[in-house]
């Protein structure tokens, strides 16, 4: 007796009968098909249009766009800048993040909670505010650090509007991400591996070199690749600091050619494709690494309490480093924003300006129609995209984790693809879709940005949902089935409630990041459809610094509330997860 070989999965289970048709078009299957279609659509269609727009001209395959794009003046220096910027800021972020993570997890330094608070900074200070704050801190003429620290000490200024300046600002913003990645890696390391090296007679330095670092290597490589992708696609620092200093990179170039009159879509496409190629290589290497390093995993599920390394005389320099990092990365940017928001016209803090503070700029912002519109747009977009992404991904992750649908792994891969697409490139792709497809009028509406957010945050939603889905035993769902519940009932009454902690965590994360989204939005917004980050961008262009600072301060306040809520909620729900 042989099995029906080819007919697999859902079709196989229809080993069929009078009601095959009824079952084929059941609510469950319709939902599954719809979700798969949406995932493929939002991940692939913008890319398709990007390819078409870049390589096809008048129905002919052509490389003309590339020739145009790459014959522009200063192209070699742009590519070199891009790579140098990525390498430099990654290096700064990696060094800072790894060092701090090691100190916090494996040594006896004080002030550990301070560092964990600092690690939340990228979540609560949007990149655009971080970048602008650093202009106030380190520009050669008005930078507070230059005026009060560097000039008195050296007689010269540090110029933030240079490649090293850009690297520093970007590196500082990304260091917490490396910190969190490396903390996870150091924590999951079985201390008995190091202890057995010590018992074999190796001195501490040898243990560090021969055991600790090799064990952390997969995590280090992974972090490097993530940094490379993030810095290549970074937009805020290149556009705000880089343009002022004449340092061009891919992202600022794409934005620039689209702002031309008329916009050169083909060139934007050509630059986008180049950038996409670079980031895709990074993401591809990262996923290969992740697969390979599974055999390398040191996580055994046991709770470790690693014995902290006693730093001895090095304890004080280490403490100083942590305090310095906290001041530079957290206190200074927030303080300068707060200060700027109290001034009528921005000038560097002096005794006079400090004694003459007002809340006028807050009043201006609250009474400005533009600000009200921006808050409303950001809220609608944030809530809408967070809800839509989590709903879609709850079902998509169910398909991937639970069903035996042939090709379900493709849904998984496709839903992660947008990770490799820089926000700006995605914006360009989506722009092409809705400019070119006749009859669909999404441009000039919030919908076009909603589509972008849906795409950009799909990978994160998938990760949150599928992580929780893996934690729910298959039997919990099967027992609902054998108890007589249909698919929809068991999904609603068993799967979704159990997924809830993960879904809520993902929902809040997406809400937080979508409120700060700039790089896709800046391609897609139209007058009247500004979001908060766009408004801050425009205020920066117009030099309305006090109002910008006031709006930024309020935004940071709101984000602090959201992040705190997320952590509280996560902790509370987390307990019942057992």
């Amino acid at each position, binding site marked *: *007796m042989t*099995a*029906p*070989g*080819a007919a*697999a999965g859902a079709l*196989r*289970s*229809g*080993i*069929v*009968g*009078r009601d095959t048709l009824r079952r084929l078009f059941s609510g469950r299957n319709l939902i599954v098909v719809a979700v798969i279609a949406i995932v493929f659509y939002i991940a692939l269609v913008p890319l398709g249009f990007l390819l078409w727009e870049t390589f096809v001209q008048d129905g002919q395959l052509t490389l003309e766009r590339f020739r145009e794009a790459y014959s522009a003046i200063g192209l070699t220096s742009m590519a070199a800048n891009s790579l140098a910027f990525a390498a430099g800021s990654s290096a700064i972020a990696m060094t800072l993040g790894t060092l701090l993570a090691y100190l916090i997890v494996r040594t006896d330094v004080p002030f550990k909670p301070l560092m964990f608070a600092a690690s939340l900074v990228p979540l609560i200070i949007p990149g655009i505010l971080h970048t602008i704050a650093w202009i106030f801190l380190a520009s050669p003429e008005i930078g507070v650090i230059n005026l009060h620290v560097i000039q008195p000490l050296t007689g010269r200024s540090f110029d933030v509007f240079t490649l090293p300046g850009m690297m520093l600002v970007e590196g500082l913003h990304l260091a917490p991400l490396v910190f969190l990645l490396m903390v996870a890696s150091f924590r999951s390391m079985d201390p008995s591996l190091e202890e057995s090296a010590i018992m074999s007679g190796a001195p501490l330095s040898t243990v560090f070199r021969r055991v600790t670092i090799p064990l952390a290597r997969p995590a280090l490589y992974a972090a490097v690749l993530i940094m490379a992708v993030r810095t290549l696609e970074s937009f805020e620092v290149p556009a705000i600091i880089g343009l002022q200093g004449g340092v061009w990179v891919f992202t600022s170039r794409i934005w620039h050619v689209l702002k031309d009159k008329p916009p050169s879509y083909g060139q934007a496409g050509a630059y986008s494709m180049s950038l996409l190629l670079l980031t895709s290589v990074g993401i591809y290497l990262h996923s290969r690494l992740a697969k390979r390093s599974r055999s390398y995993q040191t996580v055994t599920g046991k709770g470790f309490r690693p014995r902290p390394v006693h730093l001895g005389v090095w304890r004080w320099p280490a403490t100083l480093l942590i305090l310095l990092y906290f001041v530079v990365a957290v206190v200074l940017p927030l303080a300068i924003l707060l200060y700027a928001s109290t001034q009528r016209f921005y000038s560097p803090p002096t005794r006079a300006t400090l004694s003459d503070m007002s809340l006028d700029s807050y009043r201006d912002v609250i009474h400005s129609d533009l600000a009200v519109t921006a808050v409303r747009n950001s809220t609608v977009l944030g809530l809408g995209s967070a809800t839509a992404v989590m709903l879609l991904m709850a079902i998509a992750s169910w398909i991937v984790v639970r069903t035996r649908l042939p090709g379900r*792994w493709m849904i998984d891969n496709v839903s992660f693809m947008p990770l490799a697409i820089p926000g700006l490139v995605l914006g360009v792709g989506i722009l092409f879709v809705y400019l070119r497809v006749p009859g669909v009028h999404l441009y000039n509406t919030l919908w076009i940005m909603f589509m972008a957010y849906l795409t950009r945050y799909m990978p994160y939603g998938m990760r949150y949902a599928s992580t929780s889905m893996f934690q729910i*035993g298959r*039997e*919990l769902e*099967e*027992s*609902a*089935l*054998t*108890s*007589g*519940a*249909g*698919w929809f*009932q*068991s999904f609603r*009454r*068993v799967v979704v*409630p*159990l997924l*809830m902690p993960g879904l809520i965590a993902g929902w809040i994360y997406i809400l937080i990041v979508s409120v700060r989204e700039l790089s896709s939005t800046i391609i897609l917004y139209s007058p009247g459809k500004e979001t908060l980050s766009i408004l801050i961008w425009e205020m920066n262009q117009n030099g309305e610094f006090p109002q910008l600072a006031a709006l930024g301060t309020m935004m940071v306040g709101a984000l602090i509330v959201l992040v705190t809520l997320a952590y509280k909620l996560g902790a509370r729900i987390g307990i*019942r*997860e*057992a």
Partner: protein
Amino acid sequence: MLRITNLVKSFGASRGEKRKRVFAVEDISLEVDEGQLFTLLGPSGCGKTTTLRCVAGLETPDSGEIAVADRVLFSSEKRIRVPANERGLGMVFQSYAIWPHMNVFKNVAFPLQVLPRRKRPSSKGIKERVERVLGVVRLDHLASRQATDLSGGQQQRLALARALVMEPPLLLLDEPLSNLDAKLRDEMRFELKRLQRELGITGVYVTHDQVEALAMSNRVAVMRDGKIEQVGAPREVYERPISRFVADFIGTSNFIDGSIERREGSDYIVKTPDGPLRVHADADFAVGAPVVVAARPEHIELTVGENGTAPNHWQGRVEARAFLGEVVDHVVSVGSREIRARCNSKVSIPPETDVAVAFHEEAFSLIPAGE
């Protein structure tokens, strides 16, 4: 009550390899009578759980037929496949699958609440039925407790209550005791057996634990590589294993190779390198046929000294002994082989002692060689 006919279930080996299929269940047929507890026993990977999941509707068989109480649930021939949620069977999972986001009452009420509206009892009716079944499994005092706060044994009983609340015609149990510690497992074994007998439940029980299978079932099917090796009452399977696999899997056996020398009535004289054995067997064996004699260690008696060399009496020397509490295991070398003998705890013979080894009649079963 349950009738399975020519059940086949295979799995694709892995993505991309269409040709490689692993047969988890290969042509199984069996029947379970009403009120009986039927056990599928076998090592992991033998297909017992797959068989159970096919009955539950959680797996779709490749071919065959499954019917419960004359209702066909699956038939490849008649093209019938009733979905799991419409089969109305009760199932207890190995991990219990207690829903952690519901309390005890809600867990048990769930199967009633998801009934189609016309069949669903009123909320008062649901409450009554849930309370009754919680009473049966002695959890009535914990109804409002969060399910995750229960102990292992209580979760076990909760899973049972949830499976029973529908009063299903057939109860499916997938290694329900394997997550409990030894002491609790003993208790629950009796508890389950008592409930099954008192409520007249028909059940299919899957386990890899031979003690559980022997203690609880009316009938046992020993499975191996997707096929049923032997079906019978526990005592029958234990005392008359028809193959070396069954004899080895259920209990421990000494296997002694030999060949039939002659027949004496219903007894056979088996020639072995270490002396003749007289073995009773119902089956027919030709003179000269190669056979294996399986000898249960608990029916082998050791006495210090010599005892002549009558059939079923060998001479040996104790090599090692192990005190196991209720019994003492001895390893005795006889000629070229080692025989394991299990004596009651009063008999404990030090190593290096010459002993007489007496096989009792009931120690033996005769198995054709090569199976």
